[in-house]
């Protein structure tokens, strides 16, 4: 908590985007999280990505559940729509919001508790449906808001602040997402914005569910010696395998494309992402090999990071379900509520 508010004064040389907005215009209220929380750094990365993409804040719906992580939408894009759902229910709300208004840019923020414990089923189904949204899992290995209990992402043997080791095996959100058909899977670290920001930019342009697991240390309850989600541990054991450069629609591709190491993947709306392999034997376009790679390295205690898997070919929920293009609010009343006769006709179909 900080008593003075971040003052409105800004750097005179701050860059303006296509909408004439500066970074500062993408902020929200002052954070009430602990000083040094990884979640705040992710907030800053979201602000940067939205600014770089010249997203108009009012076209965004911020959705979250319960937890320190789920509080963060208040701290960015003050001009966006927002919904704090019940614990673990963010994906259901997001699905409804998306179905009702295809033009909304859905930005979901959740925690490891919110998504992997109480909300696991919700998350899995949103992934499975390939709902068009960005799904950020702010993963600190604890229930931060409720004072640091182990969560479903706590590694075996990782120690609590009191020194007790975790004895229940974790769910790895990346492996889970890959296994149930996710079309965009990334893992990053709150302490590495150079990696995180372009991943978020790409995620926001993905035509489907972009799942981003971000290791985000809880400075208060999980940043000690013996924790596998501390700043120091993640820096030591992180293994970037593929680097993502986001290329905006208007920009030409400048760097040479080296066959074998670089791939350019077009995204929704004309943007592209350039994937550069850091690990030679890694292929972000091959789900089976990606799964194996992540699993092998996980077994060795390595945290594989980068834009790990991308498949732009699978249709999103909107195509599969044939949701209506026009937002429901813009449809005339007669279309939304065609009357008793129409209802009778539908009922008749299923007799």
């Amino acid at each position, binding site marked *: *908590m*900080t*008593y*003075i*508010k*971040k*003052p*409105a*004064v*800004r*750097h*005179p*040389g*701050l*860059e303006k985007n296509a909408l004439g907005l500066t*970074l*500062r215009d993408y902020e929200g209220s002052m954070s009430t999280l*602990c*000083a*040094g*929380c*990884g979640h*705040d*750094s992710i*907030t*800053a990365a979201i602000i940067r990505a939205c600014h770089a993409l010249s997203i108009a804040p009012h076209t965004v719906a911020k959705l979250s559940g319960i937890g320190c992580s789920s509080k963060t939408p208040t701290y960015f894009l003050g001009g966006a729509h927002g919904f704090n759902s019940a614990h673990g229910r963010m994906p259901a709300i997001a699905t409804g919001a998306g179905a009702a208004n295809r033009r909304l840019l859905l930005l979901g923020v959740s925690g490891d508790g919110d998504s992997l414990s109480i909300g696991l089923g919700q998350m899995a189904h949103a992934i499975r449906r390939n709902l068009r949204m960005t799904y950020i899992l702010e993963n600190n290995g604890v229930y931060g808001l409720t004072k640091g209990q182990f969560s479903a992402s706590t590694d075996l043997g990782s120690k609590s602040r009191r020194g007790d080791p975790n004895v229940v095996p974790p769910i790895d959100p990346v492996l889970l997402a890959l296994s149930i058909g996710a079309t965009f899977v990334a893992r990053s670290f*709150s*302490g590495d*914005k150079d990696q995180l920001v372009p991943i978020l930019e790409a995620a926001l342009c993905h035509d489907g569910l972009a799942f981003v697991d971000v290791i985000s*240390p809880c*400075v208060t309850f999980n*940043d000690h010696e013996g924790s596998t989600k501390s*700043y*120091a541990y993640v*820096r030591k054991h992180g293994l970037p395998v593929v680097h993502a450069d986001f290329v905006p629609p208007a920009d030409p591709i400048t760097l040479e494309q080296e066959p074998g190491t670089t791939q350019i993947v077009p995204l929704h709306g004309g943007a592209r992402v350039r994937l550069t392999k850091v690990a030679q034997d890694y292929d972000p376009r091959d789900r089976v090999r990606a799964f194996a790679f992540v699993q092998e390295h996980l077994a060795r205690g390595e945290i594989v990071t980068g834009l790990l898997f991308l498949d732009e070919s699978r249709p999103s929920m909107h195509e599969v379900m044939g949701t209506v293009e026009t937002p429901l609010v813009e449809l005339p009343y007669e279309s939304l509520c065609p009357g008793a006769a129409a209802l009778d006709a539908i009922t008749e179909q299923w007799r």
Partner: protein
Amino acid sequence: MLPTDVSRPDYWHRVVDCQWACPAHTNVPEYIRLIGQGRYADAYLLNRESNVFPGILGRTCDRPCEPACRRGRVEEQPVAICRLKRVAADLKGEIRDRLPRGPFRKNGKRIACVGAGPASLTVANDLLPLGYEVTLFEKLSAPGGLMRSNIPAFRLPESVLDEEIGYILDMGADLRLSTPITSMRRLLEDGGFDAVFVGSGAPRGKDLDAPGRHDSPNVHVGIEWLESVAFGHTTSVGERVLVIGVGNTAMDCCRTARRLGGRDVKVMARRDRPYFKASPWELEDAEEEGVEIVVNHAPREFVVRDGRLQGMLFDRLEWSVDAQGRQRSRTIDTVFFPADDVILAIGQETAFPWIERDIGIAFDASGQPVVDRVTHQSSREGVFFGGDAAWGPLNIIWAVAHGHAAAISIDLHCRGEPLDRRPPQGMRLVSTKMGLHEWSYANDYDASRRQKMVHVDLERRFGDLRLEVEVGFDAAQTAREVARCLNCDVHTVFRASACIECDACIDICPVQCLTIVRDPGDDLQALEARLSAPRAHPDQPLYVSGPLPQTARLMVKDEDVCIHCGLCTERCPTSAWDMQKFDLLQPYAGRPACPT
């Protein structure tokens, strides 16, 4: 890249833009805070320590601090530092009992000062409490130098001048008025002084060598004319007045002329506005008083008929830039301006007809004495120069700074110590943290704009030559202006060993000062390219840390527009940042600063 050396005062001092720009290095932010707390006497005394004349300078200072003020880079207008200084002087109450009070135990050394302007008075101020006997020889009938004889009373009331000069004279200075020194040789040989300080100023007004110059008594040299007004010898001027030149002297001349009966007063400038020497606020004040400023007119000749001045001819100029990038003028035509009086305000220079050239005091080809930039000593041991006399006309605050430095030299000289072994500056850095979110300074940014000085109305001004024009800030204005100060002396001090690279400080900084970068080696450009916001002022320092523990990257702070809000420190989970108040400890004669 090597970490920035922050072990010496210079690094921190430089970040305090105002203090760094002030020739006397007055601790501006600290006295502004004291004013904010209503501690006017404390603010005054802190000021006086370095600038000796807060009341005078609070009205007349050239204010090198204000263009330097960080606030001017953050929004548009700097803090009204000078006006705040005046508030402290006006409201301080009685402070005599807090000044050094004689009689001081004499040390048997005798110092002569030539002239009783601000430079000499500062020397006296510093040396009297140490037991020196200081004799001030002054040509005029009152002390103060140009502050009395040239700066008009409507800018600087006599009472303020008397009060602040009085504080020094009352320490026991031996002031000899109406006593011009006419021979340096005699002063040195017969005076029995251990050292001589020459603070005689730059008393000669430049003349204009144009046809007709000496054909009428109505052509005046500006500084002489102002002096004769100040001492009551001149009490009127013709209705149509031309002032030649557009420096600060010209501004005082034209505004004085408006008060002595001048109705149509024009300031004639050779060039266009961007090249004017006068301070912008003085130009503004003159124009407010109905003075017309005529640009691109070069004086050609005086028109005098039957011994009566008719006016002047001017060449109308057009300026352009030639292939070499030099400014060139072309005369378009010649025009006549009628005038009853013409005042020449085209500059002043030093004059030393009273210093013999064979007594070991060397002069250079242009007739300037050869003076050491640091010690102020001339080529003759024991003879020192300061103020306008040393290197030509400057201003009051420079004269004061010279006075302090010369006093240190004179003290060393009299104690038989080498002049180049000068006491160093020291510093103190103390945390301002008082509690979880409490600081010993007001860290919130106040968006108030610079307060406007109220002036007495024109009618009253023109009716009373000595009526001070500026009213001074009232309580509400003072409170608002004080809050605009960014407390640049409360520094962000970084401890690399504690940083866990969480980015909290970087993300919270409202003005994008901070960046964590991979060590760019010696490549400063690469580093600059990585900064969170473009580096707008490369003359502003970068504060580069040593390698951070987890990744060996570097924390870099661009000091340029830091508003010293302390948010980086508040958001740092490990107290790697701290907000520490910096005190520059300056040495004065006989009073070395604490060792670093």
